[in-house]
């Protein structure tokens, strides 16, 4: 995970993400925004899953799939 890149990402409360290195912008939903904020705060994927399980009415499998998918998307777009 590219923590330097993660640190410079501009993330607004609305879920709008701006990558100042590439100039690309993205929109994340509330769950994606939460995952991204936790990643920026230095949390590991397992910790993020725990936080989401506490906050959302979802199963462990659902949360795992969401977190993994979202992290893969971030990697795909060179955001982490």
């Amino acid at each position, binding site marked *: 995970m590219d923590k330097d890149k993660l640190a410079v990402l501009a993330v607004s409360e609305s879920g709008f993400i*701006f990558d*100042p*290195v*590439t*100039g690309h912008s993205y929109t994340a939903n509330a769950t994606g925004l939460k995952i991204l904020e936790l990643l920026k705060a230095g949390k590991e994927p397992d910790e993020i899953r725990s936080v989401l399980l506490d906050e959302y009415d979802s199963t462990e499998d659902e949360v795992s799939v969401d977190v993994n998918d979202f992290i893969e998307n971030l990697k795909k777009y060179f955001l982490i």
Partner: protein
Amino acid sequence: MKLTVAVSGINTIDNPGPGAGICRALKESGMDVRTIGLAYDALEPGIYLDHIIDKSYIMPYPSGSREAFIERIKDIHSRESIDVIISALDAELPIYMDIEPVLKDIGIKMLIPSKEMFRLRDKLRLKELAEKIGVKAPEYMSCTSLADLHNAVNELGFPCMVKGPFYEAYKANSPGEAEGYFGKIAAAWGYPIIVQKFIQGDEYDVIGCGDGNGNDIGVFAIRKMTITKLGKVWNAVSIRNEKLIEATKRVVKGLSWRGGFEFEVLLEDKTQEIYVLEINPRFPAWVYFPAGCGINLPARMVQLLTGQDYDTHSDYKSGKLMIRYTNELVKDISDFEQISTFGETSEKGE
């Protein structure tokens, strides 16, 4: 210190010149500047932008007589006492490179590349340039006939880019498309036509200005968000990409670049490697964008040339958006009469 700066490329049309942006940047710099527009046609819009261009003159074409070109500048200089000329068109740079010593003798300063620098950034020498500055260049072949084109597309495969010597670039997906674009570009711009391997990625531009001693006096990077059919930036966002900024500084240092420039690159999606597409030897049409973000390169260039203190920092914010738009002016036919009959506009207020 009152300065008079003459600027060309005031053709703010669909393929816009940088002149109007340069004048606007100068006017907003806080310097006391009189701006003179050097136009080649009575309908160049900059002639009529009298809020940023104080007076305009029609120039003889740079492809014509060198003597006539010099005489016209001397004639304008005798009335305007020009301190600096900022040349903003590719086609006139060769003549300015020739006559710069003559202009210097009469007190007109310019910051433009040497012939050797100009030669090195030629589109047909990209590989050499890329090696010099430590980036990649897409594979390309230069074509002057259909036989050359067929050979090039066989070699480079599809999709490929078919590019003009000066402007226009198209992505061709088949031999038929490549031939169509080849004919279209050749009819508009002549030869050679460049066929380039297609690299999947995003296009970025960096504007900068070199002092001729290997130092830059500011750089500013953007991602092109939308471009026109002629490949011109229409909307853009400022970015902070250190890899790109470092590559730009290597261009300035490696070539000891003198003057404004635009470094056009592509970042490959798969590898994020930098491919140089082109170096334009003058400020680009979007030169006002960095000025609006605190990197006023035309003003810094004028300050450098006239012995004033100037900034060299490149501290700007990423995430600033440039929105280009079209607009209309309503003028009187007598304004057109004045410039087309006398070759110059009236003084403001006359």
